[in-house]
């Protein structure tokens, strides 16, 4: 067990270092982060500011948090490409493909999110948020980050496994992402939606991964939930996603082996 944990830790650390490999090539991409925060805040300002649920600074911080999470969510091509190509070899190795994929994805996504947190501290205050607000939000986000990153990893893993037995899965990555972008509260807080949409969307798991996290980071408490309730919901979702992952892996393995590898 100790050897296994040591192996996965080293494997994860290797993928952490990999994140810094092509930094200059992704630097320009990181600049899209404060840009989208700026545009989405203007949209909120025009359409929803009259509701008074958030100040402008709070909304900038909220959108920064949700965009930060979304930028590294469900990017199987960027984060899971190697896992796919390693599937055949992994079947002949003593280490489980799911374990290796999970540990590498967790390291990559967590590192990516921590980088975005650092960028947020530097580039979001000039967009219009208060520095104190951004610092508080990032501090609260760091508390929740491990749990929401596990969710992101399990969802990405699902698509990586699914693509192994149906190539066309890649066409459904974008729509899946849009469910969270448009309906999970990434583009704007669900608290500004009117009924019945607000209740409907807040009840969905997607709101726990983005809207509730962003709301907590800005306001210091969840929307209509206690901390314990949110943690319980996330834990159940992790169990469900993990079960799905095992199922998808078994199907992919059977398909791969019957196909001839």
């Amino acid at each position, binding site marked *: 067990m100790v050897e296994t944990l040591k192996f996965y830790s080293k494997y994860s650390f290797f993928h952490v270092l990999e994140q810094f490999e092509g930094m*200059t*090539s*992704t*630097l*320009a*991409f990181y*600049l*899209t982060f404060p*840009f*989208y925060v700026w*545009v*989405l805040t*203007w*949209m909120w*300002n*025009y*359409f*929803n500011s009259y509701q008074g649920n958030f100040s402008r600074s709070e909304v900038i911080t909220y959108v920064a948090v949700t965009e930060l999470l979304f930028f590294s969510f469900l990017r199987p091509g960027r984060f899971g490409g190697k896992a796919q190509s390693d599937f055949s070899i992994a079947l002949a190795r003593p280490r489980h493909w799911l374990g290796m994929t999970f540990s590498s994805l967790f390291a990559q996504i967590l590192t990516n999110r921590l980088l975005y947190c650092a960028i947020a501290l530097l580039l979001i205050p000039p967009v219009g948020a208060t520095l104190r607000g951004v610092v508080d939000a990032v501090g609260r986000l760091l508390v929740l980050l491990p749990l929401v990153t596990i969710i992101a990893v399990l969802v990405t893993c699902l698509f990586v496994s699914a693509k192994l037995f149906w*190539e*066309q899965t890649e*066409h*459904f990555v*974008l*729509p899946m*992402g*849009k*469910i969270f*972008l*448009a*309906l999970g509260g990434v*583009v*704007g807080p669900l608290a*500004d*939606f*009117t*009924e019945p*949409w607000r209740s409907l*969307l807040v009840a969905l798991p997607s709101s726990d991964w983005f809207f509730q996290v962003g709301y907590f980071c800005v306001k210091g408490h969840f929307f209509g939930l206690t901390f314990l309730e949110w943690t319980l919901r996330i834990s159940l979702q992790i169990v469900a996603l993990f079960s799905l992952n095992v199922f998808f892996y078994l199907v992919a393995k059977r398909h791969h082996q019957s196909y001839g590898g």
Partner: protein
Amino acid sequence: MIRLARAAIRANLDAQFATPVNLLAGAFGMILNNTLMLAGLWMMLFAGKPQHNAMLPYFLSIQGVMALGWGLVNFFFGGFRQLATLIEEGQLEPLLATPRSPLLLAGLSRSDVSAFGDIVQGFLVIAFVGWIAPLDYVLRSLLVALIAALGWIGLFTLAGATAFFFARGSSIAQFLIEMTLGLSVYPTGKMLGPDIRWILYFTPAVAIGVLPMEYVERAGISDFLFAIAAVGVLVAGAAGLFKLGLRRYQTVSYVGPRS
């Protein structure tokens, strides 16, 4: 040139239709993607907010125009968007050995299957606008979608040409495209305050989204001419930058390291 374009487009279409499952999955995925985004934005911005209803035709029209324009370019001329990557990976080299325009050949070299979904969805959304706006609004939206398509070609060429001048041109190109997409797909022409709206006029979004949509709204001849002029400047500027970059690219010595 026209015969070449026709042949290349037919070859791309044949390739797409040769794998109908892939085509259908790609198209369906993109339609689902755009519909979810539209539904989410409608819930966020318009549902239960009657004070914003006057802006609904503009909002839907811009979504349809952008989807249709983007889809037309990426389905029939998918290589333009990948121009920076083509240059970085040396795939421009074979295109320089022909007597044809390398830019046109690059543009015709690829076809994005999911863009078919953008075309279908763009048409459907613009048609839906006909329920809440007069017919001439719909017709202007269709016309403007073609102008936007030209604008996208100009933007992709401009962004792609940065690969001639910078080592990481593809990431700069990606940033330019993402930025313009963000400024064009959302109704920035209306929602940005007057003190900050001037920024748009220094971005490609003015030619792709802002001025064309002003023509859709106001239906003035001058608005139409401004839209055409803006797209013309963007396309001409982009083609000029590509030509400049190409000359630089072709004159670089292969003996030493390439700067």
